[in-house]
């Protein structure tokens, strides 16, 4: 009977090894082996082999289900004790679960927000192979990046660099009047693109053929939305859209509407041939100026550096011989939104939000720990009993963790309900199209699971380790005093909760002040009582007649037309200047304006003179001679940068590769903020073009009779630009929309700090009620000996006040550091030291809220008749 040990079939053994419950594995596995050997000896290999496999089919499921049903029974037991515990202490459970739920809801919302920000361009499944090409200027004071590239670039790349499967350029039209049949609207989402646009961005065509749709001149593909807007339910293919007053464009296809989570969402895609035909040779083959965005699809290349090298090899042939410091760089389309200087999203904000989400979740967990340890005295007896009856420490730990996990699950359910209710509000603040069903996405689910486990572990860990360590004998003899143990730990927890709250309150205040500062800072030009109209129609060619007509009205103070409005000047080119070190040129911004620009926006001249109609040489390109191409006005910063003592009459030279064009300085204006306050004021030059600076027509009017003035303006507009609707806005409304992302940051932080304070107060309320309860007898005795109610209240609130004060001391430097970092992102910001009172006010606010929270319990204890509290002995 006893032969050598024969090893059972390997694979079958592996299955047994891996599917038996861990605790039973060695024994059962041994049993299998022994019987296998018995049968082997008795009936031979075949029978034993068959038996072993048969066991896997028949026994394993039985054993497994036995194990599983036992776990369910255990879980049911935990659930029962937990629910019983929750029910027995309703108020306490409510505080706990409500706190956790609010914290989790906040966390889930942040998760949704972050997930949404990361989802940009996700609908384009090639997004990681699509590259955006941009230009970097290296020779300027700091690296200067420009989103637009030369027109012929991608075509050349496509011809010369292997691996570029497809490409498209995007040249945006300014706001343009589009009409079809009897419909007429201004469109802002109109672009010229190459046929590769469908492959590069994955736009799906509902109608039309992607190979031929954008092949011909004067054809366009539109979104469903545009098709419906102009043609209703009819099939738009083959019909014409008229651009401006006379350019018919035939619709050759319809693409599905863009998802909300994309930054590339043109509505009308006009064939690139149209742009070439409209703009001519100077546009198509110009390697020097940069007017449009370029995207390439390179599926086979994963290294940015390799790709940049290849592009450089090609571009070096076309770069100007002298003074051309442009370097072409690429970035992945999928990264633009969050990680690029050109992206509309901000990775920094996301980090801040995630951090805050964690902090709030942490505050909620701290509540749980706090209240659980505070109540430990009550449960110490339970623990003692369990231990006496024979519970091992491990089982107690499992029980406490189980309880905290069940609470966490309950809170999560509540939290999800809260989230569902809050989503519309968050949508309003952030402008994101987040939806509740996005919670089903794997990334969010994973985050939720992580939060659940974190919350369960974190909030259960301390009670589990601390309570389970009680020695049964002293506990049951009543030697462990109520909640004495862990009091120090509790203090730390409360202090850190209030720290978090105070930091958030301070941040909110600082955000608010900075935004207030940016909105109200004098920008160096007037923005009140100015009506702005985008230049359209005939005034694009000559704006003078309209200006003259408008100036007739006494309510109109000044009229100007300019390429760009003063708050956002974003054209630039390379210049050098008289007296510049050899070979030095820098990129500086410029605007093209008419005679009345400075007057309308009330930008003061500090030296020299304004452009004058009497001096023809003021005009840019007044003569064909590049050595004397006209006069310009600079800002102070430019003069400073050029290092000139006396700027009037000096020369500034524009550098276009080998071509150099010289201008003479006639005036200097005071610096004004021509871009966001995040950026310092840089050098600026201003050109004159009185007939057609394109862009905008701005009219400064008297504050009286605004309606009549507007009506008059519309009438005059219609006389000249017949057929073009008069769409105007007030200039100051632009500034309402500026700093939108900072504004939503401020709003969200307001809510976050409220939540953090709310959660911390829930915890504090619990602790206070516990403390009051614990000291009932003390209070009773004190009152018998003559303590007044006020003294008792003071006694009970003293501790909490100390904690909050300590929290302040820790929170202030942290908030100071964090806010200094944030403000560092703005070239013009408030002085944090001069705003010291913000810190003080936040601290006092936290203290007052803590007092109110604790005060209720303290007062209740203080007015209690001592007879009641002492009688029950």
């Amino acid at each position, binding site marked *: 009977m006893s032969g050598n*040990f024969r090893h059972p079939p390997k694979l079958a053994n592996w299955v047994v090894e891996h599917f038996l419950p861990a605790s039973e594995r*060695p024994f059962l596995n*041994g049993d299998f082996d022994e*019987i296998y*050997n018995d049968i082997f000896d008795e009936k031979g290999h075949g029978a034993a082999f068959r038996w072993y496999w048969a066991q896997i089919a028949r026994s394993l499921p*039985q*054993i497994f289900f036995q194990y599983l049903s036992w776990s369910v029974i255990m879980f049911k037991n935990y659930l029962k004790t937990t629910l019983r515990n929750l029910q027995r202490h309703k108020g306490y459970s409510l505080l706990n679960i409500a706190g956790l739920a609010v914290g989790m809801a906040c966390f889930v919302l942040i998760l949704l927000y972050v997930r949404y920000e990361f989802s940009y361009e996700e609908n384009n499944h090639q997004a990681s192979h699509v590259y955006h090409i941009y230009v970097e200027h290296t020779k300027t004071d700091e690296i200067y990046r420009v989103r637009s590239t030369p027109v012929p670039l991608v075509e050349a790349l496509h011809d010369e660099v292997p691996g570029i499967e497809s490409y498209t350029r995007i040249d945006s039209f300014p706001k343009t009047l589009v009409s079809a049949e009897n419909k007429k609207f201004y469109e802002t989402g109109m672009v010229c693109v190459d046929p590769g646009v469908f492959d590069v961005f994955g736009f799906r065509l509902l109608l039309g053929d992607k190979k031929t749709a954008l092949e011909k001149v004067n054809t366009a593909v539109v979104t469903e939305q545009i098709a419906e807007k102009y043609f209703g339910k009819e099939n738009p293919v083959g019909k014409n859209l008229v651009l401006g007053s006379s350019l018919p464009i035939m619709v050759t296809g319809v693409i599905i509407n863009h998802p909300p989570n994309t930054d590339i969402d043109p509505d009308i895609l006009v064939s690139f041939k149209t742009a070439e035909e409209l703009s001519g040779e100077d546009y198509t083959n110009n390697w020097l100026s940069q007017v449009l965005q370029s995207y390439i699809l390179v599926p086979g290349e994963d290294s940015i550096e390799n790709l940049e090298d290849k592009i450089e090899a090609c571009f070096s042939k076309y770069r100007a011989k002298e003074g051309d410091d442009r370097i072409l760089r690429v970035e992945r389309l999928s990264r633009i939104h969050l990680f690029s200087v050109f992206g509309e999203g901000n990775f920094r904000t996301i980090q801040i939000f995630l951090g805050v989400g964690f902090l709030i979740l942490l505050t909620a967990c701290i509540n749980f720990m706090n209240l659980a340890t505070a109540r430990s005295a009550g449960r110490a007896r339970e623990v003692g009993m369990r231990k006496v009856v024979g519970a091992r420490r491990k089982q107690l730990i499992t029980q406490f963790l189980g309880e905290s996990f069940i609470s966490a699950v309950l809170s999560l359910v509540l939290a999800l309900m809260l989230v569902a209710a809050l989503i519309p509000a968050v949508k309003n603040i952030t402008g994101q199209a987040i939806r509740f069903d996005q919670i089903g996405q794997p990334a969010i689910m994973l985050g939720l699971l992580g939060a659940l486990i974190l919350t369960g572990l974190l909030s259960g860990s301390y009670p589990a380790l601390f309570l389970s360590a009680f020695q049964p004998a002293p506990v049951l003899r009543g030697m462990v005093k109520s909640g004495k143990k862990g009091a120090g730990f509790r203090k730390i927890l409360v202090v850190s909760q209030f720290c978090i709250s105070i930091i958030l309150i301070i941040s909110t205040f600082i955000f608010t002040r900075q935004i207030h500062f940016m909105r109200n800072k004098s920008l160096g030009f007037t923005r009140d009582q100015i009506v702005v109209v985008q230049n359209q129609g005939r005034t694009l060619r000559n704006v003078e007649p309209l200006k003259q007509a408008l100036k007739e009205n006494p309510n109109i103070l000044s009229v100007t037309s300019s390429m760009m409005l003063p708050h956002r000047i974003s054209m630039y080119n390379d210049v050098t200047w008289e007296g510049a070190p050899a070979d030095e040129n820098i990129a500086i911004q410029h605007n093209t304006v008419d005679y009345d620009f400075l007057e309308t926006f009330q930008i003061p001249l500090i030296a020299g003179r304004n452009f004058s109609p009497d001096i023809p040489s003021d005009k840019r390109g007044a003569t064909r001679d590049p050595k004397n191409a006209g006069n310009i006005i600079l800002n102070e910063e430019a003069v400073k940068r050029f290092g000139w003592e006396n700027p009037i009459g000096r020369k500034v030279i524009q550098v276009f590769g080998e071509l150099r064009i010289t201008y003479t300085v006639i005036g200097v204006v005071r610096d004004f903020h021509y871009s966001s306050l995040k950026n310092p004021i840089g050098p600026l030059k201003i050109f004159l073009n009185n007939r057609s600076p394109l862009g905008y027509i701005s009219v400064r009017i008297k504050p009286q009779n605004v309606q009549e003035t507007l009506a008059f303006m519309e009438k005059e507009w219609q006389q000249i630009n017949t057929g073009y609707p008069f769409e105007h806005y007030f200039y100051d409304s632009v500034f309402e929309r500026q700093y939108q992302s900072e504004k939503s940051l401020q709003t969200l932080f307001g809510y976050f700090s409220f939540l953090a304070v709310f959660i911390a107060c829930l915890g504090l309320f619990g602790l206070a009620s516990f403390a009051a309860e614990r000291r009932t007898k003390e209070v009773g005795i004190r009152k018998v000996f003559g303590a007044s109610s006020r003294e008792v209240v003071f006694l009970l609130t003293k501790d909490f006040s100390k904690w909050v004060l300590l929290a302040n001391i820790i929170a202030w430097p942290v908030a100071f550091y964090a806010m200094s970092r944030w403000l560092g992102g703005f070239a013009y910001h408030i002085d944090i030291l001069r705003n010291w009172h913000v810190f003080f006010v936040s601290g006092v606010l936290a203290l007052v809220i803590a007092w109110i929270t604790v005060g209720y319990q303290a007062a209740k204890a203080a007015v209690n008749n001592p007879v009641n509290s002492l009688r029950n002995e």
Partner: protein
Amino acid sequence: MNYLTRKEEMILLTILKLRGQAGLVQIRKELIALTGEEWTVGNVYVPLDRMSKHGYLSVYIGKPTSRRGGKAVKYYRLTSEAKKALAECKKIHETVWTGIRDTALEE
């Protein structure tokens, strides 16, 4: 008092008969000999596990042997509760069968 199932009763009795040498392998062998039917490992293990969790069986770990691939064996012993339950069981059997003649079961 929970009644034992027939299977549990058989297993408990088998363990009793094996006198301290009651591992799963031995119990299974006895049961096969007793009933003449095949008992899978699971058929034996599941009631054993259930009864140990209910406190009818105590367990002690034996030495590993080479025949078991170097794995230890788990021996089962009856607790006093199990003995009480068996006694009860026997009493019930006797009570229930009293007064029923063998001929009553013949068709």
